[in-house]
């Protein structure tokens, strides 16, 4: 049963486009593609639409060369490539919540070169540590809401917003509960499974996803993975959906017990705290959530959060990955590694590209594992 649930997550990812097309057929509702997790999906659910995250396919993206200079990160190029290749031709619109320049470029290229009916850019504030950010964002969200209403001709009601908030909160809460099982000495789910759970939640109807999560939570207490967990690893960095890498590393005798990035725990860590002013409530969630580094200043709050995760999940070592050319995350690598070192967590840096050269990486990861735990008794 548990295996079937994880198989379902995998199938959803592998067949994300088929799923979406079928969903649309079935419900006759609109689908919105979004690029960054700063897009408040609550409002899209409130508008009775299905938000799906646009992610790459890890094929070398030759088609983007005319639109994006190759010094921008592979994720932003790979995402655009999906659009240019028509793989998202079913979406009714695209929305971006301001994060890094890289994805902004993808958004603009998409808007200019790929036929879509609706394109909206939300100027999510960068100064999330200043007190004016929340009211400002609430106004930006009001504008977003109005643009949606004008487009569909349908009002987004308070009830709708409540529904949206509930759907999102529920899904995040359930996934956090699953994460509790990763804290165990012998975790009940592997890193790749956790990644597939989170990734699939960004691709399908959250209500359907939550149903499955409920089942999973019933099953998990009785699950026995029958595998030696090996070294407890953490993975930190830019967006990461490289399932091949995760699988390969875990096969070397390790388990990813937690990750800090936006296809992992960062996506589900914070909830909307309901209040009368719904948009203020949503705005607070996006300003106060575990931030993307591009917004995290003057204090390094994300680093503090990563350190806390490392302790709570009892990690032995961390892989710090950087998507090549990703500036916001790249800038923080030394302070991050130092902060982890101070709490006794060793780190190893790896630079990711659209595909990872596993041959080269394997030796490094294996050697890192050896330095952490592997060879102690042989000296």
């Amino acid at each position, binding site marked *: 049963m548990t295996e079937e649930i994880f198989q379902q997550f995998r199938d959803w990812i592998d067949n994300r486009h088929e799923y979406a097309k079928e969903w649309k057929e079935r419900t006759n509702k609109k689908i919105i593609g979004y690029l960054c997790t700063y897009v408040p999906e609550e409002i899209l659910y409130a508008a009775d639409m299905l938000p799906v995250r646009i992610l790459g396919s890890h094929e070398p993206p030759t088609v983007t060369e005319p639109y994006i200079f190759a010094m921008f990160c592979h994720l932003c190029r790979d995402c655009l490539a999906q659009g240019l290749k028509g793989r998202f031709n079913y979406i009714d619109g695209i929305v971006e919540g301001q994060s890094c320049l890289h994805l902004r470029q993808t958004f603009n290229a998409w808007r200019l070169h790929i036929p879509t009916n609706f394109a909206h850019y939300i100027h999510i504030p960068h100064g999330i540590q200043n007190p004016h950010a929340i009211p400002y964002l609430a106004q930006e969200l009001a504008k977003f809401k109005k643009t949606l209403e004008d487009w569909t001709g349908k009002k987004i009601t308070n009830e709708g917003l409540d529904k949206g908030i509930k759907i999102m909160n529920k899904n995040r809460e359930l996934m956090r509960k699953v994460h509790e099982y990763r804290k165990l000495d012998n975790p009940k789910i592997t890193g790749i499974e956790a990644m597939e759970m989170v990734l699939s939640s960004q691709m399908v109807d959250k209500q359907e996803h939550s149903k499955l999560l409920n089942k999973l939570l019933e099953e998990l207490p009785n699950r026995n993975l029958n595998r030696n967990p090996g070294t407890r690893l953490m993975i930190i960095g830019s967006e990461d959906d490289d399932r091949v890498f995760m699988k390969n590393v875990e096969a070397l005798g390790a388990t990813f017990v937690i990750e800090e990035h936006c296809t992992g725990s960062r996506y589900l860590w914070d909830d909307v705290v309901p209040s009368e002013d719904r948009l203020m409530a949503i705005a607070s969630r996006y300003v106060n959530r575990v931030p993307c580094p591009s917004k995290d200043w003057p204090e390094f709050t994300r680093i503090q959060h990563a350190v806390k995760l490392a302790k709570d999940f009892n990690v032995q070592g961390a892989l710090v990955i950087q998507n090549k050319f990703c500036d916001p995350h790249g800038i923080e690598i030394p302070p991050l590694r130092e902060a982890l070192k101070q709490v006794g967590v060793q780190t190893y840096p790896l630079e990711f590209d659209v595909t990872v050269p596993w041959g080269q990486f394997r030796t490094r990861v294996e050697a890192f594992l050896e*330095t952490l735990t592997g060879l102690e008794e042989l000296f």
Partner: protein
Amino acid sequence: MSEKSKEFWRWREYRHTMPNMDWHDAKMVTAGVDIGSVGSKAAVMLDGELYTYAAMRTGGVSEETAVKAMNWAIEETGLKTEDIHYVVGTGYGRVNVPFAKRTITEIACHARGAHYIYGPTVRTVLDIGGQDCKAIRCDEKGKVMSFLMNDKCAAGTGRGLEVFADLIRTPIEELGKTSLSVQDEPQPVSNTCVIFAKAESVALLRQGWPKEKVSAAYHLAMVNRIIDLLTKVGIEKDFVVTGGVAKNTGIVSRLERNLKLKPLEPKLDPILAGAIGSALFAKALYEKEIGLR
């Protein structure tokens, strides 16, 4: 073979057995096989002392090379593979050593091998092999503390030197010496890419630079890249160089000059560090197996 088709990059293969040692006297016979992308090395140790070894070029099929290197190492010693208690494979082709019981990365093995070759004062090991270059920090037992490998660009490796040796028609063993014969160091070639560094060298040769000078420029560029890597991991004394390129004096003496730090002199062939390290791990693993640890 005509001068024209002579392959200057082909470094000499060799084997050696220590005199005055007899494997029959040993309690533990262990071996390490290091299948690198360019060179394959096998070493057999008796109770943790180097007994016999071989170094040869890696062929098209790693399994065959592994068998060949091992057989060559034990040739004429009377030792048979079955007599070896434990074999550890390492290097790029470590999973392709059919008779190895376990694999360990070349990073751990080089550190441990360096510890054996150079003694317990070693803290920084620089391994320059065929296709990569590793900077390793280790403790007094030869255990890895941290390490870094060169990324993306293969410039600054043994393979690049082989390409270059062919280009200037100088046997690889003499390449380093040739590069040291110039009076003043020229500007390094600017391109760090192996392919373009070669193209740039061609351009310099066409401008009439003597090959010694071009060679110096090429070596210097490599050394600069290696130093970049070393500073990232942080250099601490004592510093040593292992891997095949440790035999290239053009690289080692420039490292010494530019780092203002003298690497220790090897007491044994430094290309063997990986194989020796894995043979030592093999010993520890065997001890564990028979309950000695």
